[in-house]
C-alpha cells in the first residue's frame, strides 16, 4: 500500500481512522454513511495538504481526532456533520 514499513505516527493515524470507522458502524445506517464520508474526506484532505515532516501539527490533529472519536463513541451521540467555513479577508 504505502511505504514498506509504517512509522509510529503513520500507525497512529491509521488506527485513529480505523477507530472512526468502527464507531461509525455502531450508529444508524444513514448517519453511518455520513460519518464515513466526512471522516474519509478529512483524512484524505489532510494527507495531501499537511507536510509529512510537520510533526507538531500532525500530533495536534491526532489529539483533536482522538477527542472527537471519544465523543463519537458515546451512545448518546447520533451523527456527525460538518460545515465548510471560508475565511474571508476583511
Amino acid at each position, binding site marked *: 500500500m504505502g511505504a514498506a514499513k509504517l512509522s509510529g505516527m503513520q500507525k497512529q493515524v491509521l488506527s485513529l481512522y480505523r477507530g472512526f470507522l468502527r464507531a461509525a458502524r455502531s450508529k444508524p445506517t444513514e448517519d453511518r454513511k455520513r460519518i464515513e464520508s466526512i471522516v474519509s474526506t478529512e483524512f484524505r484532505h489532510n494527507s495531501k495538504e499537511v507536510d509529512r515532516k510537520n510533526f507538531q501539527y500532525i500530533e*495536534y490533529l491526532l489529539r483533536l481526532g482522538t477527542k472527537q472519536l471519544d465523543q463519537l463513541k458515546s451512545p448518546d451521540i447520533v451523527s456527525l456533520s460538518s460545515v465548510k467555513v471560508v475565511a474571508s479577508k476583511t
Partner: protein
Amino acid sequence: MAFGLIGRVVGTKPSRLSAAVRLIPARWTSTGSEAQSKASSGGGGANLKTFQIYRWNPDNPGKPELQDYKIDLKDCGPMVLDALIKIKNEMDPSLTFRRSCREGICGSCAMNIDGCNGLACLTKIESGSKETTITPLPHMFVIKDLVVDMTNFYNQYKSIEPWLKRKNPASVPGKEILQSKKDRAKLDGMYECILCACCSTSCPSYWWNPESYLGPAALLHANRWISDSRDEYTKERLEAINDEFKLYRCHTILNCARACPKGLNPGKQITHIKQLQQSG
C-alpha cells in the same frame, strides 16, 4: 401627601438628569484625553515595554514563534493580563489566551511569565525596559497561542475521586456531618487550590512522566480528602495512590511550592501522604 411626593420627584429628577448629563461628557472627554495621551506618548515613546509572546496557530501551522509587542505602560493596568488584553484589543485580535475572573481565583490565566509559572492577573508587569517573555505552561500540549490542553491534568484530578465518601450514613440523617474546628483547620492550605496547574507544570518529574505521575495538584487534593475527618475511605484512598509512579515520582524538588500563585505548598502535603503510607 401627593404634593409632597410630586415635589420630591420634581426635586430629584433634574439632579438625576444633570448627573447623567454630567456623566456622558465626562466619559467622552476621558476617552479623548486617552487618545491624546496615546498620540503624544506613542510619538514620544514614554515608558514602552516589549512583550515577547509565544504564537502558534493550528489553522496556519508552521513553527511556533515569539512575537514582539510594544506596550506603553502608562496606558496599561499593572498586571500582565491587562497588557495581554490591551494587545488583543488594540494591536492583534488573534492573540488567544484563557482568562476569566481577573482577580486570581479562577485559575484560567495560568501561563509562564519570564520563566516562572503564575497567574497573569496576579503577576505585576516588571518595570524597566527589559523584555518580558510570555509562553504557555511548560511541557503541555498547545492548542493555540497561550492555550494548553488541560484534559490530562483534569483526568488525574478526577482519578483521585475528590468527593466525600462514607461507609456509614450521617449520625443525624439529612443534616450536615459535623466536624470540629481542629479537624477543619487540618484542611487549611489545601482547600484553597484553584486547579490552575502552575505547580504540576513546574515539576520536572511531572514533565518526564505526565501520564503516570499524578502531579502536585492532584496529590494535594488527594491529601485534602485523606485528611478530611468526615471521609471514611482513608485507607482505600491511601492504597489507591500507593504506587511507584502515582506518588513516588515526587523527589521533593519543591518547584511546586515556589510556583503556586495562592501560596500553597503541595510538596508539604505530598510529604504528609508519604508519612501516612509509612506508618499505615
